[in-house]
């Protein structure tokens, strides 16, 4: 446990040292917010101000999706570069580097969420709920990220190169984030796509975040905050139930 925290510190130090990884959690959500609010906002919602409470929770979810999938790239790089050999020759638990990376990522997620929310507030976003709901939203999205990261760990362990991990991860993230109600109301989509959006777990994460941050009126018709949060918790259970054993199995085989 102590070793995992030391290694988590490594992940965090690296994030601040490595501009690309820091951009992922700082500049990227800001660019996405500007892009969607000011460029697409008028077209989607009539004007930017009305679009902001709708899209900001979606941008948080999208950012977190991308950051939670970098863990596989990082682990794969560590193994390729021989850094894991060093760890494995030390008297620490075999799982310490893995859990260290996961703990470190929690900090990344928290930063990404905070950056997006603060930037949103600066350009005019106002919370439609109370602080308790906002705190719940932050906890919920981090919980979802930690559940999702096992998919990335699994990819990171089976893929040959860091580049392949990146490619595979994008292949998963794109249909999940864009094939949802992240940027446009689901009702505007063609019917076949609505079918996918309804079962896509990311849709439920986004709806839950909208309900918790902006208020229930920004959610799709017929959805409730409590119902969506339950949906998210259920998908976390399924993600962890399926991918945690697979990921740790692949990790043990490799490490």
């Amino acid at each position: 446990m102590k070793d995992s925290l030391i290694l988590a510190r490594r992940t965090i130090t690296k994030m601040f040292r490595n501009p690309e990884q820091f951009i992922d959690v700082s500049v990227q959500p800001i660019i996405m917010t500007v892009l969607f609010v000011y460029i697409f906002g008028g077209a989607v919602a009539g004007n930017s101000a009305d679009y902001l409470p709708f899209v900001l929770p979606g941008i948080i979810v999208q950012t977190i999706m991308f950051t939670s999938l970098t863990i596989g790239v990082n682990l794969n790089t560590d193994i390729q570069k021989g850094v894991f050999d060093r760890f494995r020759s030390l008297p620490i638990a075999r799982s310490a580097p893995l859990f260290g990376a996961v703990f470190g990522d929690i900090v990344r997620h928290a930063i990404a969420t905070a950056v997006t929310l603060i930037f949103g507030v600066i350009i005019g976003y106002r919370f439609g709920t109370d602080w308790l709901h906002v705190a719940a939203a932050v906890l919920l999205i981090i919980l979802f990220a930690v559940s999702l990261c096992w998919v990335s760990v699994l990819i990171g362990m089976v893929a040959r190169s860091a580049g392949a991990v990146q490619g595979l991860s994008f292949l998963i993230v794109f249909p999940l984030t864009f094939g949802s109600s992240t940027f446009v109301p689901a009702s505007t989509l063609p019917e076949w796509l609505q079918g996918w959006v309804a079962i896509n777990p990311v849709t439920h994460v986004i709806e839950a975040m909208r309900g918790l941050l902006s208020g229930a009126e920004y959610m799709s018709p017929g959805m409730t905050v409590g119902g969506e949060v339950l949906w998210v918790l259920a998908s976390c259970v399924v993600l962890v139930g399926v991918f945690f054993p697979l990921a740790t199995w692949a990790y043990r085989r490799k490490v």
Partner: protein
Amino acid sequence: MTTTAIEAHGLTKRYGKTQALAGIDLEVSEGRVLGVLGPNGAGKTTAVRILATLLRPDSGTATVSGFDIVHQAKDVRRTIGLTGQYASVDEDLTGVQNLVMIGRLLDLSRKNAIARATELLAEFDLTDAGRRLTKTYSGGMRRRLDLAASLIGRPSVVFLDEPTTGLDPAKRDDVWDMVRALVRQGTTVLLTTQYLEEADALANEITVIDHGRVIAHDTPQGLKRQVGGQTLEVRANDIADLPEIRRLLERVGTRAPEQPSPDQLAVPVLDETALTSVVSELAGRGIRVSELSLRLPSLDEVFYSLTGATKTDEEVAA
């Protein structure tokens, strides 16, 4: 009484169709240096990875510092330091951060980890570079940092996997000096190398492996005797002198001289005294030479004579 620091019996390891190790025995006494000599793909790295608990052998047993490498892996890890073939430092951290992190993982307090890191950086001539990201380091600096990283826990057994491959001669000498310093402190060292010269310079004993098997084990002296020791090479100024030089070399050499190029003769000799006697004989006869050198046999020549010798044995047996 000498105690055994590393002991391995019949280690085997197979990767798919490749038999990386086909039953290796190794033994190193405490405070000694064993050189494991072999070409690329001989199984050196696999053997080191097994002994350093990074890999499990398919069969065979081994102990390091008295601990079983499979069943007491964690105890083994407490006593060893490992420097791999590729410097395994974290490129996105500074030299200090790399060393402090490992110190912390070895249960040093933050204060002690920093102190140990500072001490090692000074020892390895990296103090000035300590605050820079290691991705800005040169190959030699990385190698030194990697070596420093493996010494943080003051290990009693150190594995060095091809520590000088890819380094220029000056940097190589630096690494050699560091290995000698380690040995002075009583550390046991197992070092793999492709160069007989390196094994000769550092090791008390040399194990030669090829295709996952031990093909020779001896002291550097014994091994050199087995493979014909050093080679004396003479390049004549005037080709007309060659017959006389040949007669001279026949007397000091252990085999008939070979002629690697039209103006050059080479002969295996037992020791350095051959050089001085040849020099004085040449001077006495007024023969001028453009080049005169004594060199250790290359890995190729070692293998040629070792595998050649095995063949002769088989022929004798047949």
